[in-house]
């Protein structure tokens, strides 16, 4: 391609020659580094392993940078450098020595490409290099990457490391990695059987993958051992899957609950068919986006608190929008459900298009704060933090709302107006004011739901549309006007959906749920928990 490319190729040839010599020289590493940018992925994979084999302690950092995609070739002198973005340019350091080399614009640098294959090679090479690291977490990571690759060549290294290991957790991981390697080698039958049992005792999907992979090529004597191991793991996994489904169901249920709980007030208690409910949820999500945008540009340190700041703001913004909608449109249409439906449907289109004009039609990026990213293991279940927080949040919102309805004067007036408007009015309650507040409360809660949903869904003008049907479904199923019904309804639908999904597929599961609700409503038109009130009388 370019004349400069020829030079590293020569160096590669030289490097391979040198690598073949016993007691290779120190330049060896540099030559290999210069060979990294060129050649096919399989050539370069070999270079990575050669680099790891040199045992040079500068190599781990270099490979790390390669894996992260931070390694560049300086186009002027063909030097391999680590580039970190700083402003518009890249701050450069020498790939091996770490010497600072000033900055360069991206046009002067050519990135050293890595694909998954090279990243795997880097991972396993780093695993080998850091197995003796003084820090236990680094060793643990190294051992687990050896486990994933299970390369027989690293057995010797692993044995040495195992002998010196003191940390029990790391030791266990190393033993598992060793077992995974042993079943691939031509070790004795007994040793292999022990390795199989060790893997079977681990009892997770990774172990299952290794045993299933080893089954076809195993010696006939070992096959029953492996099969027993697989059966054992599968039994454990079946139980775990059931638990997992319950968790997924609860998590889906909590999302449904969040989406529906505002509607439980506006539709449930007030009897307003609010088709713009989804768009109010969307406004809440966009409030989160706006808050994060301000934080990103002005106060980057506060990012982890962005949701805490967005919550009250979203409540305020959407409650005000809700009150405006009630005062401006809905109050003129009480008692005329069809007109309310059409007016709010139109309103939902207006809100969508307004947001589209202001923020653009594309998805907006709402980041997850660090405490909402990733997953943790609980008794073998992998539970993602964002889902857990959403379950917690949904229940908290539910509890607060319940308290507001049952323990505050506003709640008392709301219930009074819902149950008998004329009587409440005669008792001196300003029913129009209560109507506006109720609608504002329901909208505000929908806005808070939007903050939570922005963490798991697209923040786009269409966000609300996908929730509106589900929300009505939950409220109608649970019983119009009853908060507990909404809670039970949402969780029931979530769990039922998640148990159907593995068997019927996502599309059919949704259809089954709809059919079920239709049949259920035939039997109990008022839903799970019926309530007497204006909605019933109307």
């Amino acid at each position: 391609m370019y004349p400069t490319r020829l030079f590293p190729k020569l160096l590669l040839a030289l490097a391979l020659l040198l690598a073949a010599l016993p007691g290779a020289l120190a330049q060896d590493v540099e030559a290999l580094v210069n060979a990294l940018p060129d050649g096919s992925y399989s050539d370069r994979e070999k270079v990575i392993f050669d680099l790891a084999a040199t045992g040079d302690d500068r190599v781990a950092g270099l490979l790390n940078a390669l894996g992260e995609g931070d390694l560049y070739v300086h186009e002027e002198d063909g030097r391999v450098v680590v580039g970190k973005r700083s402003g518009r340019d890249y701050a450069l350091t020498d790939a091996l020595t770490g010497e600072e080399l000033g900055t360069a614009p991206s046009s002067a640098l050519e990135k050293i490409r890595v694909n998954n294959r090279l990243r795997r090679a880097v991972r396993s090479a780093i695993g080998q290099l850091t197995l003796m690291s003084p820090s236990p977490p680094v060793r643990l990571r190294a051992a687990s990457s050896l486990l994933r690759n299970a390369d027989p060549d690293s057995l010797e290294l692993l044995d040495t490391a195992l002998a010196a290991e003191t940390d029990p957790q790391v030791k266990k991981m190393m033993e598992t990695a060793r077992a995974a390697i042993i079943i691939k080698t031509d070790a004795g039958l007994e040793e292999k059987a022990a390795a199989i049992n060790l893997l079977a005792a681990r009892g997770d999907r990774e172990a299952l993958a290794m045993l299933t992979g080893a089954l076809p090529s195993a010696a006939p004597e070992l096959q029953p051992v492996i099969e027993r191991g697989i059966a054992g793991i599968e039994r454990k996994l079946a139980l775990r899957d059931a638990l997992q489904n319950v968790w997924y169901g609860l998590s889906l249920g909590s999302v449904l609950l969040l989406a529906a709980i505002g509607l439980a007030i506006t539709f449930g208690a007030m009897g307003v068919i609010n088709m713009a409910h989804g768009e109010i949820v969307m406004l809440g999500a966009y409030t989160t986006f706006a808050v994060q945008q301000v934080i990103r540009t002005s106060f980057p340190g506060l990012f982890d608190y962005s949701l805490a700041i967005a919550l009250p703001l979203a409540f305020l913004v959407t409650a005000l929008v809700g009150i405006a909608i009630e005062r401006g449109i809905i109050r003129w249409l009480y008692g005329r459900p069809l007109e309310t439906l059409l007016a709010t449907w139109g309103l939902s289109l207006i809100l969508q298009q307004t947001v589209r004009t202001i923020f653009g039609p594309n998805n907006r990026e709402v980041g997850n704060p660090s405490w909402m990213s990733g997953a943790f293991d609980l008794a073998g279940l992998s539970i993602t933090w964002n889902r857990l927080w959403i379950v917690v949040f949904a229940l908290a919102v539910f509890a607060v709302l319940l308290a507001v309805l049952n323990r505050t004067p506003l709640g008392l007036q709301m219930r009074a107006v819902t149950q008998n408007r004329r009587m409440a009015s005669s008792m001196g309650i300003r029913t129009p004011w209560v109507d506006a507040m109720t609608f504002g409360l329901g909208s505000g809660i929908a806005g808070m739901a939007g903050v939570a949903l922005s963490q798991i869904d697209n923040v786009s003008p269409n966000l609300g549309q996908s929730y509106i049907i589900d929300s009505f479904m939950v409220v109608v199923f649970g019983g119009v006007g009853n908060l507990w019904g909404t809670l039970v309804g949402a969780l029931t639908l979530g769990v039922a959906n998640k148990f159907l999904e593995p068997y019927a597929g996502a599309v059919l599961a949704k259809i089954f749920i709809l059919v079920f609700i239709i049949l259920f409503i035939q039997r109990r038109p008022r839903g799970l928990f019926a309530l007497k009130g204006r909605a019933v009388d109307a």
Partner: protein
Amino acid sequence: MSTTFTRRAILAAALAGSVSLSAGISYAQEEAIKVGVLHSLSGTMAISETTLKDTMLFLIDEQNKKGGLLGKKLEAVVVDPASDWPLFAEKARELIAVDEVAAVFGCWTSVSRKSVLPVFEELNSILFYPVQYEGEESQRNVFYTGAAPNQQAIPAVDYLMNEEGVERWVLAGTDYVYPRTTNKILEQYLMDKGVAAEDIMINYTPFSHSDWQTIVSDIKAFGSAGKKTAVVSTINGDANVPFYKELANQGIAAEDIPVVAFSVGEEELAGIDTEPLVGHLAAWNYFQSVETPENEEFIAKWREFIGDENRVTNDPMEAHVVGFNLWVQAVEKAGTTDTDAVLDAIIGLETPNLTGGTAKMLPNHHITKPVLIGEIQDDGQFEVVWETEEVVPGDAWSDFLPESKMIEADWTAPINCGNYNTETKSCGGAS
């Protein structure tokens, strides 16, 4: 790459809105050649199609700067079919019959294309369709400037098979015509390659599916059978963001189970933090990151036009660039915008694409394209890890499906047929 929300962005949005409004009013100018733009500016598909509308305005603006076409100015007529499939047909009729446009550039989903086909046939006009699609179609009045399955799906599967050594396949898609047909072709192709039926898992989800927990954990389980597993994703539109978020949260790294997507481009990634997704793949015929002088010039001019220096470009945009240039050439060659003359003139014309190759209009109304496989980077861009050495000619009827392998499309004399059966030597498809 995060698109920063600035005052300029609002201004640009407002500006774009007003441009489309004023362009929507058709001036009674005798001297202008009208070009129809049929992309949804509201509703579900606005997320993808709005950019294409802007691309067309940009291309027409550029052409006018060069002196227009046949000595006349070009004028865009923009309509909004609002992601409503029957409305596409109505709006297409309006563009052709009322506004008398010379050609229409538009549609995104296959269902919208299918809905306008009869209109273009009846009123004999021209449609340029810029999106990758499922194939099994070639219509006299339509030019398919996006990829056919052999220009996207098949090479991607080959790459995974050869470079990554994948033996077990998850075909996950949104439940509509494009994923279903593509997966049918892929399933047959994999079976022909000797992949066993139990090593293929097919899964469909509704549009805008947002709860991916079960499916992602199913994929994880499917991937733990001791064989290298990959996901081929024809998941479309909105559903992708929660899908990728769930993948990242459940810790599925690209090194273990790579996902290759056919509908995820730079625009879609703009809404996600791509740090945990590095290494997942996409197959397209164009990436913004491709370093060619043509592409750099295009990106610079596009950003200047749109007034946003972070705006991304994507594959369907390039398809519009190629389609528009081919149409301009054909009109110049024919000396008229008359449909039949342009249909004749355009076959065999060539224009440089943005990735350093040449796009040629083939007799089956598809074009030649390079196939690029890119890996997602942490800045929301793709890096090409593999590409075909030559451009690949688009094949309208898949050679891997038994019911369509004997069918060819050829819109030149003497065949002049979109579904010519090479066995019975007659026009009219399989039966």
